[in-house]
């Protein structure tokens, strides 16, 4: 409710209206005061259980998809003879992916990537780059041997570089491209995923999520973990806004992210950070009520901002270039301010954080 009040008090204009309309339903239930660090673990485990369930579904559906294509004698024949079943399975797998990553893993990524103990899972599953694109520590070690004998050797993290491009036709290596709609030509993303790629990556990802879940269950979170993760992850938000700005200038620049908007990823990271902040907020407020509230308001402000942008994007609002720059600059100012404020909070409660 507090968030809504804040937003309603904002000036009565079009921009504010979108903010109000977008007042997050995502955040409201999770931002209750007095939460402890144990709740961060609960949040992480609960989310990962859902991710695991979606991943199990994905394994099942990819296996079924492979079986149909195999029985029909390949993707094109399957499309010709069992189009409804194949299309339904692809749609199901896309939903599985959204549940696994976009609305699942992404909402705990701030914790997984920010807590040292888990950080390697993030590189493996979501953030790791292909072997030619980054420093060794940034490269996902994912290596898959397909049923055909082909090997996918460090081509990037499973979610971002394999599953999503396979399901949305973003990378020709993982799909069989042909004329799905029968209009005589093969469109840019007109394709079916290669079944051997999907089944192998599904099994591997499911196993890795299982490992992550087991580690999360055995994790004993500390206040230090929360601060360290917030200090590590909050500064990345400015870069996300930069990405968003660039993607607004050019649709092509939005690149790999087909499943959901970049804003959804930002919301996910923010949500993780906000959950962690909630867990430590009472300690900050006890020392400095104003700072405690300022950080809390900072998170809410950014959520509202993101939600407003999301709504505007959903309505296909096209911004003027200067507006894009201004919105990105305002967002950057808000996130930039949070970083040193979190460091101050850490110092007040006697937690030393690197970075």
């Amino acid at each position, binding site marked *: 409710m507090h968030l809504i009040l804040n937003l309603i008090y904002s000036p009565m204009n079009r921009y504010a209206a979108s903010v109000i309309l977008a007042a997050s339903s995502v955040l409201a239930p999770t931002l209750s005061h007095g939460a402890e660090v144990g709740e961060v673990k609960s949040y992480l485990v609960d989310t990962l259980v859902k991710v695991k369930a979606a991943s199990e579904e994905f394994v099942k559906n990819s296996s079924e998809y492979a079986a149909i294509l195999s029985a029909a004698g390949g993707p094109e024949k399957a499309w010709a003879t069992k189009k409804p079943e194949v299309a339904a399975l692809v749609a199901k797998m896309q939903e599985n992916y959204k549940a696994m990553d976009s609305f699942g893993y992404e909402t705990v990524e701030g914790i997984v990537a920010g807590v040292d103990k888990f950080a390697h899972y993030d590189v493996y599953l979501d953030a790791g780059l292909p072997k030619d694109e980054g420093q060794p520590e940034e490269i996902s070690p994912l290596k898959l041997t397909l049923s055909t004998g082909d090997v996918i050797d460090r081509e990037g993290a499973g979610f971002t570089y394999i599953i999503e491009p396979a399901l949305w036709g973003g990378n020709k290596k993982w799909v069989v491209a042909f004329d799905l709609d029968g209009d005589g030509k093969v469109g840019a993303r007109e394709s079916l995923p290669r079944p051997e790629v999907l089944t192998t990556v599904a099994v591997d990802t499911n196993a890795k999520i299982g490992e992550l879940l087991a580690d999360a269950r055995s994790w004993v979170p500390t206040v230090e973990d929360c601060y360290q993760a917030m200090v590590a992850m909050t500064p990345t938000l400015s870069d996300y806004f930069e990405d968003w700005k660039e993607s607004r200038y050019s649709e092509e620049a939005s690149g790999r992210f087909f499943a959901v908007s970049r804003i959804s990823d930002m919301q996910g990271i923010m949500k993780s950070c906000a959950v962690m902040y909630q867990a430590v907020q009472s300690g900050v407020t006890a020392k400095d009520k104003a700072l405690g509230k300022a950080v809390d308001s900072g998170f809410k402000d950014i959520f509202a901002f993101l939600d407003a942008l999301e709504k505007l994007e959903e309505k296909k*609002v096209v911004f003027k270039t200067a507006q894009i720059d201004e919105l990105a600059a305002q967002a950057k100012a808000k996130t930039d301010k949070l970083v040193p404020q979190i460091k101050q909070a850490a110092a007040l409660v006697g937690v030393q954080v690197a970075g």
Partner: protein
Amino acid sequence: MKYRFHAGLMRRLLPAMAVLAMALLPRVQADVLDAAAEVQRGIESAIVELYGGEVTPETWSSTRQAVAGFTSNLQSPSSQQLWTEASLPEVAPATAEAGQLLGQRQALLQHVYALEMLDRQQKEQLEAAREWRALIQLPKYADAVQGVLALQHGKGAQRDAVSALLAREYLVWQTTLIREKTDALQRLIQQKRSTPEMIATRTGEIQTLAAFPAPLLKIVLPDTAPPVPNMATWQALTKADEAGLPPAFEAWSSQIRRDLPNLLTPEDVTRRERLLIKLLKLVPVEYSAGVRDGEIVIPIEYREAETFTIQSRQILDELRAPWERQRGDIFTQYEPALRASIEKMEAAIQAKSDSSVVDRESAKAVEILADHFGISLRRQGKASEVIAETMLDIRTLLSESHAAARAGKWSDAESLRLEAYTTFDLEIEARTMPRDPDLALRTEKLFLDGSKGQPGIKAALDARASGPALAAAYEAALAGMNDCGALLQMSISPLTAIYTTISVVTREGLEAVVILAALVAGLRGGENRRIRRNIGIGVFAALLASVATFIVSRMIITSLSRYGESLEAVVSVLAVFVLLIVTNWVFHKMYWVEWNAKLRSLTRAVNTGGETASANMAMIGVGFLTIYREGFETVLFLQSLLLEAGLRPVLIGLSIGLAIVSGMGLGVFYIGAKLPYRRLLVITGVLVITVLVTFLGSTVRLFQTVGWLPIHPITWLDIPTWMGTWLGLYPSLEGMLIPPLGLVYVGGAWLWVKWRSARTQAALANTLARPATAAAP
């Protein structure tokens, strides 16, 4: 692009929202944070609308009300006065002017927050002071921890000190933001993305932000008058057309940057200077990794290159004020070129130009900083101390990194490893390279990926290694560094230093003995006692003068010890000159003969002139010159050896050399022994030639260490380390080719003398033969 407003939706929602807002007003205004947020959001929304075309009357009106209402929160007279300037006109003015007003209010808000914070803190209302402080906009990497801790105890005796800290903190944040905002606007102008409304809004904000309230400035810089804003450049900018925009912006932003207060301590300046040169060196590395053939291949590397360049320019801006004060002439002469190089780098990065452009501009900028501003990443002081201190630092960093890795704090472990590696790279590897490139490169790899048999620390951290595998990576790097350290501890081996000292002292002493012996040979008997005594006085005075010269030159060199290896390199060149002169005498006996003849003729003249004061002085002078010439050369040479090898081996060599010379002197002058002078001169001459070769080698190494000579390692050549410490040979092209040039020189000189002598003899023979020939027919 066009902005499609959802006017219908808005029309339906607006009345409901307005009613709710009015109902909530008192409650919200009870909290400063919320009241400030309301003003802030109003301004932000109005700006977005303005950029879309125009500010709606509703937005303008509500923002105006919020601005007016905010006054009730203010208690400080300074902020109240400042905020009176913030009131907005009833109707939104023409678009650009509206932007200016909105931007100015954004900045005024920040100043008001700061003034209120200080006011409350002075009144010891710390909770309220904290509230106001929490409102201030912060740059991303602001250091705000000190202030938040200080505000826990900002009362009583600490009150004024805390005020000063908070005010300084505020000025630092805002000057950083001013630079960031100015740079951001400059990029938009360069990319042709700016609009007149945007220029008006953002420059309005920056201009007002840079006009720090006098009460704030007074706390931090009591002796600095607040700068008078230059309205002319600002007005010129807001009126500039598209073509005139870049120069107008440059003129305005230069003025803004120049007027920013200097808040840097000398330590801050040094730290920023080092950071600047480090960033400039890193930019081409990141860029070449991130961009290939005009395409971004690794976005993060590209972004790092971009960020580092922007940071470089920001640091340059920060250093402007202290540099103008401390290095006025150098600043005026070289800062424009430095800035131009950084700007060219920035433009090349934006255009994704060939990496050679970035390389070239980076090298230019680094060269200006190193050559004209005297900034180096290398530590200053005696090489041995720098090495010892650096090795201790690296050990500590690696130990902390290992501990962090064991605790599963991988990112901490990696950042500590990186710091250890860059420290090693700058101080240890640079010195090891000229001596043993293979060891230097092998050890460097141990900090990075390592080899097949032994993974390096980075590889171990990347692989999340643990237990013995992790420990082995750290131990291997430490062992490699210790090998480098052991090599660097000895510039030349102590035995080489002793041998060199004995050779040079014996040689120079022998020359003195031979000349003296020749002089006194004709001065035997009681009638020449006076002359012999006067020559003796001269000899004694020369010995004292040599000792004095040694002490003075030592003092001079010690006072210059902060120049470390650069000083060693210069002194080493002097020593090589001394050796060249000495070796020239070995075969080119004319110098020696002429000098000897000159002294003897002087002695004869005095001898025939009777006992006058001037004659006595002349004889003392003869003795003095004979010895001091050799003493001076020896002293000069020993300075270099002292810098290279330290006191102990030089003293041992000196004692042995002096004992040999004394023995020869006693034998010649008191016992009347006939020494094989010529043979002795040749033997000592050959010894000095070996010293010359070793010294040329170590001079080359020193030149390479300080970067005055390039290093071309010969990777396939595996020569033992002792060849470096004994013979001055090191496995690089320069280290292998230059020292033997000493032999070439001496051999050439010898051949030249022989050839000349043969020609003279042939000419003499011809002359002698000619009359006989003429008489023959």
